[in-house]
């Protein structure tokens, strides 16, 4: 794992029909240490998905540079999209195996399935899965490729609270077993505090970094909801600009 540097001078969407030219990102600068879990927090529609797509190499139309280290000539990205994006005509296991490259052994999927409690569902087609299960499969797929950078775009959105909590705990368990550099997008501050080493607050579009904070709560105490809530209150009081965002 290597450090990561993301610098985007500008990302602009061209005018389409009635909608004029739209600048989504302006002067965004973000660095990540290897193995760090960073949460991007910002209002919805501020361009977070745009940013992740640029980092994932799905969008090349921007001005700036992404340095993902030199470990691989082509750095590998694991991307958990906002919707699970599983192939409905392939089983859970096939969906994960397809993402691996030829050098990676399919056997390494087994412990991942075990951790995410999906061993029994591995030969099922995705249409039979609940949304929570599909999300877990998408997370396994992202971890399985052993990525240089893991991107997660609100992977718990539209799950009910207990399910979201369960998947979140499983994600943390997996991440502790296999530490990776994670860039996690959310608009839920509590979720961000529970997960992140560092919080990065983003402005509404054009998006730029408003403030960066290291979460002071040790990981062992993150399951304490009251502690997370009090830190959230403290942030809201100390930084009025954040309160406006959320």
């Amino acid at each position, binding site marked *: 794992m290597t450090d990561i540097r993301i610098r985007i001078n500008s990302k602009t969407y061209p005018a389409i029909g009635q909608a004029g030219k739209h600048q989504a990102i302006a002067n965004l600068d973000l660095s990540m240490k290897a193995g760090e879990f960073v949460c991007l927090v910002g209002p919805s529609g501020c361009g977070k998905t745009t940013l992740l*797509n640029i980092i*994932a*190499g*799905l969008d090349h139309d921007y001005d700036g540079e992404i340095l993902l280290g030199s470990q691989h000539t*082509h750095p*590998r*990205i694991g*991307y958990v*999209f906002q*919707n699970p*994006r599983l*192939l*409905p*005509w*392939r089983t859970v296991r096939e969906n994960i195996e*397809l*993402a691996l*490259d030829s050098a990676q052994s399919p056997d390494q999927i087994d412990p991942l399935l075990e951790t995410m409690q999906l061993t029994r569902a591995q030969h099922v*087609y995705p*249409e*039979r899965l609940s949304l929570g299960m599909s999300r877990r499969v998408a997370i396994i*797929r992202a971890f399985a*490729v052993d990525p240089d950078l893991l991107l997660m775009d609100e992977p718990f959105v539209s799950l009910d609270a207990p399910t979201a909590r369960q998947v979140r705990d499983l994600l943390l368990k997996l991440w502790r077993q296999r530490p990776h550099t994670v860039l996690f997008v959310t608009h839920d501050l509590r979720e961000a505090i529970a997960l992140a080493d560092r919080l990065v607050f983003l402005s509404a579009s054009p998006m730029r970094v408003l403030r960066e904070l290291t979460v002071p709560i040790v990981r062992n105490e993150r399951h304490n909801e009251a502690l997370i809530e009090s830190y959230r209150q403290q942030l809201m009081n100390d930084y009025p600009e954040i309160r406006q965002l959320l």
Partner: protein
Amino acid sequence: MNSRQKLLPALSLLAFLALWQGLAVYLSSSVLPAPKAVAHVFWRETVSGQLPYHLGVTLLRLVVSFAIAMLLGCALGIVLGRHKKLDAFFDNWLVIFLNIPALVTIILCYVWFGLIESAAILAVVINKLPNVTVTIREGTRALDQDLLEMARCYRFGRRKTFTHVIWPQLHPFVMSATRSGLALIWKIILVVELLGRGNGMGYQLHLFFQLFDVAGILAYTIAFVAVIQLIELVILKPLDRKSLRWRR
């Protein structure tokens, strides 16, 4: 399906035969021979080897022209579905070819290239190709962009993307092109044979027509319909089942 429902198709077939028999007896004319007379001709032609030979020749033409039309049509359809500019350019061509009557293509092919086998095949392919292309183009336009992005992000590569992401989505369109294609090609091939070949079903039917041999025409027709049903049952249905097993 319960046993009564299974009986229903057999019953309807029997009713059809009874109706035919009744009509034949009532008319008692050589214009509509009874099922028994047709069965007799069918048997005679089969034993003499005439029917299997001509049916085989037609089937071979069908397989060759169908394969060419499907392969080319799929390739063209995918390319046009993916590239807006090419599509805008060739769209008019497709409309023109879609609307040329089959008979015109057949006559022109024979006039330009002579009464040869390749001209016959070409005529069938030209008739079928635009249909396949249009169907597959629609399928390609409807491809799920989210899944294609996922494949790109996880570096599936061309081959993996095609087999696991694109092809399963095109499959229903390919099946539909196959079914409508078989029905269309059958009919066109007969005309092609009638106009310019010395063998095949179309040639034989023409012969029977000149001799006013209705029993012969009906016997060949039955063989024809049976073969198509067999293709549907033995090849197409299992293909459907296999590729749709993931659906709830």
